[in-house]
């Protein structure tokens, strides 16, 4: 009897809570209506494609649609992992992303620290304006520029090489150079821009710390090493968590615009591979399986590094 009474009570509470929610939505209906278009947008264009991922477990047949196509379990994943073509692409992605992470991550930090050491304000501003510039250009424009300056006959790089007595190199079509070009050009595009965050962090450091260090006779290198870097460590850690999530999110626009038949072997990455398999050869289900694999890994990487960061330090995304 008592039990039943408690159950009834808890049911009543549930109903109460539900009606309370309804009331609070009604009271703030205008707020909710303002939000509604955005919710609809995210449902249609972000959550519906997540449902569309199911085609990775189906034999997608255009005429039958996503719902009507037959379930085939992990067949496409088996094809992906047992196929000859996927693993070299996966390896390329990891190698290129690893170097981008290692070098591309530290370049803006170094740049920010150098900029901070400039006491001449105008010089600092000019350097910033110039190094930000490539960030605003599309990879189409930048690839066009890159191919031009790396050209064997007109490019300043090759003219410099010949100037010191070396043979000109056709960089863009050279297997041994292609990955370096990808890594280098992504640093070239974003280093200046990414340094903003670190500059902002540096500007928040208490100047008294530097003054005290000066009284102790610390050199400039010493101050950078013992004050600047430790002070911006929280920002560095948070940015690193972001960056690790990208380790498998290869930069499609960059790679696709620079990729050419001569360097396919070393430059083809997961996203360019997905594009070719899916949209050029129309192996929808197979490509969706590759894409899902990529997204799951990237999601796990962000979650994992965030977890580690939270455990080992006080700084994490959430």
């Amino acid at each position, binding site marked *: 009897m008592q039990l039943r009474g408690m159950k009834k009570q808890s049911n009543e509470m549930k109903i109460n809570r539900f009606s309370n929610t309804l009331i609070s939505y009604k009271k703030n209906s205008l*707020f909710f209506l303002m*939000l509604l278009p955005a919710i609809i947008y995210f449902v249609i264009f972000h959550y519906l494609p997540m449902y569309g991922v199911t085609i990775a477990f189906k034999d997608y047949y255009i005429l039958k649609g996503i719902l009507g196509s037959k379930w085939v379990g992990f067949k496409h994943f088996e094809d992906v992992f047992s196929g000859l073509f996927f693993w070299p692409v996966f390896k390329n992605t990891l190698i290129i992303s690893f170097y981008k992470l290692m070098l591309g991550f530290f370049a803006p930090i170094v740049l920010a620290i150098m900029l901070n*050491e400039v006491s001449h304000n105008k010089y600092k501003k000019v350097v910033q304006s110039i190094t930000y510039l490539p960030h605003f250009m599309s990879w189409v424009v930048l690839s066009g520029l890159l191919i031009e300056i790396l050209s064997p006959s007109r490019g300043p790089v090759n003219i410099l090489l010949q100037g010191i007595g070396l043979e000109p190199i056709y960089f863009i079509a050279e297997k041994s150079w292609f990955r370096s070009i990808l890594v280098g050009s992504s640093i070239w595009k974003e280093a200046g821009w990414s340094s903003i965050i670190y500059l902002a962090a540096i500007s928040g450091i208490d100047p008294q710390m530097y003054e005290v260090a000066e009284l102790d006779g610390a050199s400039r290198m010493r101050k950078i090493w013992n004050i600047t870097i430790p002070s911006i460590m929280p920002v560095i850690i948070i940015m690193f968590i972001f960056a690790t999530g990208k380790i498998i999110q290869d930069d499609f626009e960059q790679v696709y615009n620079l990729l050419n038949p001569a360097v396919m072997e070393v430059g083809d990455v997961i996203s360019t591979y997905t594009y070719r398999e899916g949209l050029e050869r129309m192996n929808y289900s197979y490509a969706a399986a590759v*894409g899902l694999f990529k997204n799951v890994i*990237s999601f796990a990487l962000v979650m994992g590094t965030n977890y580690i960061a939270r455990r080992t330090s006080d700084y994490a995304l959430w």
Partner: protein
Amino acid sequence: MKIKSKQDIFFDCIIYSLLFLCCLITIVPFLQAVTISLSPASEVNKYGLHLIPTSFNLEGYQKVIQHDQIWIAYKNTIIRTVLGTFLAVALTVLAAYPLAKKDLPHRTFWTGFIVFTMYFSGGLIPRYLLVNNLGLLNSMSALVLPSMISAFTLIVTRNFFMTIPESLEESARIDGANDLYILYKIIIPISKPIIATITLWYGVWHWNQWFDCMIYIMDKEKFVLQYVLRQIVLEGQMSDSEMAITDVMVVNTETMKMATLVVATLPIICVYPFLQKYFVKGVMMGSLKG
């Protein structure tokens, strides 16, 4: 001013010259592109550096001006940028405001609902099939709708709204104004910096976008500028229509490629001072608050 030690001067010299080198590396490709676009073909094919134009020739630009496809694409890009940016900014502001308010029921849930899309997505193929199923292929809607709101920008805008003191709105509410009116009359006018920022973010994004055009648009008349630029600069193609008109194979010279590149980039360069200012502001606003 305190007197610098020898060590300090040495240190300064290294830093200043390293930064100078960074600038040089960044700017040289742009210089080369402009110079080649202005040089006659004979000069371009000569061996040597092409950083400062030695003789002028506007043939490259003449070819660009006569190239119909570029102007059609220019028009499409402008329409796309204006339309896409307007929709994106309107919906972002409209959604960010309630998300910044404690009164919104299930606020944490709705925020998470949006943030989650930053970390997980269906991927390229399901997205393409969706656009196809919605019947958007080969239309301007395919360029504007699928990536209308950026979750990141929405969160940045919300963070900005959160810093506006509550008391500003309360007095208006006492006077009987509703939330939409408050947003329009009070919040938007004092939020001009963030609105300028996100307008530029969305605008630049739309201007530079080409991939969606490549996969969703089949009709030449609807191509956007960056995609046509890609065809000319990276694939070396000329439009079929032009070949049909002149009836000769037009050789795509480097001069013309670089001229196209300059023409497509010019609008960005023109608004660059504003871009830089507001982009930096936006990055600061978005990043330093949780």
